[in-house]
């Protein structure tokens, strides 16, 4: 149904829905989508054949007009949820949810920041498991407790001192999940560590909070979400600023920009990312791949060669 050379993330999310292999999709009454890219936007149209889908029209620039539009989009979502689930959502409910998510994100950031240490307490796969798995937890209070326990455990964990010798890789680009972790796994296997991930499944939005100093929680949410440095935003200076800071904070030795096939905005923005990384004097590798394992050998040579560049 979808074109073969579409981004694998879009194909995979639609595939999960179509083949009824995602329990979250099966149990849901309403699917909420957004227009971060053209591929998703059009896929959501087709997905409506399977379930009711509500698509939020995300503006792609930060301007007063865009902001007003985005505020309206969030209000529209609120009504749609109230209608579809026969509930009422008042401002206080939203503030409570905001507080909860802020606590979760703060903790997650503190855990990710532990990898600024040398040796880092988490391998790339550990880091991915932590940041990715939280998305599947519907009980945020329970999740926060688990994150709290994990943070304390990691902070006091004894790490082999040799781990400090490993090259430290910063990963940026498209979202990565368990199932599409091949590049992170290859980096680990080749004797290096992905110490941080500046992507949607990593650090990208962890600094952003909906702030209580607004009167209207919807406006607070709009501010937060419009600030996310997704490559669909044009221009997207905050991503470069964040990357620059993360390179320093996590003492990165090299940067890998992993983009999925046919993800035009991330693929094109790789040009800016390369400039930013080169300015810092670090080796940079742009990998364009998909969810299959067919290119693992050639990815390996590229990653290994980049790691060799960090040594001399």
């Amino acid at each position: 149904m979808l074109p073969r050379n579409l981004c694998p993330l879009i194909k995979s999310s639609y595939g999960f829905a179509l083949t009824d292999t995602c329990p979250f999709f099966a149990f849901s009454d309403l699917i909420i989508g957004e227009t971060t890219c053209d591929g998703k936007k059009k896929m959501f149209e087709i997905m409506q054949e399977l379930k009711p889908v509500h698509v939020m029209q995300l503006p792609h620039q930060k301007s007063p007009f865009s902001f007003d539009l985005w505020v309206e989009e969030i209000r529209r979502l609120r009504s749609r949820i109230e209608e579809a689930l026969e509930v009422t959502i008042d401002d206080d409910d939203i503030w409570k949810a905001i507080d909860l998510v802020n606590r979760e994100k703060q903790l997650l950031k503190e855990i990710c920041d532990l990898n600024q240490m040398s040796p880092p307490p988490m391998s790339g796969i550990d880091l991915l498991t932590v940041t990715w798995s939280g998305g599947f937890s519907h009980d945020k209070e329970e999740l926060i407790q688990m994150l709290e326990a994990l943070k304390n455990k990691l902070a006091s964990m004894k790490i082999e001192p040799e781990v400090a010798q490993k090259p430290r890789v910063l990963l940026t680009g498209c979202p990565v999940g368990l199932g599409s972790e091949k590049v992170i796994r290859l980096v680990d296997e080749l004797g290096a560590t992905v110490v941080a991930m500046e992507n949607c499944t990593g650090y990208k939005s962890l600094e952003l909070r909906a702030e209580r100093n607004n009167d209207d929680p919807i406006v607070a949410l709009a501010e937060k979400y419009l600030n996310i440095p997704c490559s669909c935003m044009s221009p997207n200076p905050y991503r470069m600023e964040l990357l620059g800071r993360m390179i320093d904070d996590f003492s990165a030795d090299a940067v890998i920009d992993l983009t999925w096939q046919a993800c035009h905005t991330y693929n094109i923005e790789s040009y800016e990312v390369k400039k930013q990384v080169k300015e810092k004097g670090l080796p940079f590798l742009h990998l364009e791949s998909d969810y299959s394992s067919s290119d693992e050998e050639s990815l390996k040579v590229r990653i290994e060669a980049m790691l060799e560049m960090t040594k001399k």
Partner: protein
Amino acid sequence: MITIGLDIGSVASKGVLLSPDKKFSIVIPTGWSPRDAGEKILAALLLQAGIERRKVDCILVTGYGRVSFNGAFRTVTEISCHARGVADLCPEARTIIDIGGQDSKVISINEKGKVLDFAMNDKCAAGTGRFLQIMANTLGMDVGELAAFEDPSATVGINSMCTVFAESEIVGLLARGSPKGGIIAGLHQSVGKRVATMARRLGVKEKIVFTGGVALNAGVRRALEEELKSRVFVPEECQFTGALGAALLAAES
């Protein structure tokens, strides 16, 4: 000190033995078993040099078969090895174009042979030795003969990048009566264009050195020079730069 560098490629395996006063080099087809090819070439090198294996201080292996060879002291990617080998043969080199059996790569290096940046072809055969080999088959020729038969004055442009589609395109051209020499020149141009695009994206600095098995083909070199509008140098030992680099890195480790 005696060191050996082995470069086990997809089509050919290359070996270089460095002793304090001499250099030996050998190339054989890899065949289906990269491990056997590595063993074979090691034995041949030792025989040629008249040296026992236990006298060898370090064996460093590179190329896609580097992981399947058991006797390696170390493995290093072909990117670092080519850089080291070319820096030894040609210290003025700043850009390396290496075209092998299944890969083409462009490497930027500094005066010490340190890799500054690199780019490699995608997972398809376009712009590699494999592309030329399959086209040679279609034309009923050996890949080694292509350069001698090309006619750049009658170049027939080949539009398909995909090896399978290019094959059909050639079948069509032959049916239409296009001259073979012109088609061959077009094939060289196609490889040249593909690799030059990759090089320009990385940034081309002189001196440009062309290595790998495909560097033996003067037609591809001509095409690269035309595309890059710059001289492209092919060292006599163009096929051995990876193995030489490996042997040199072995001596330095």
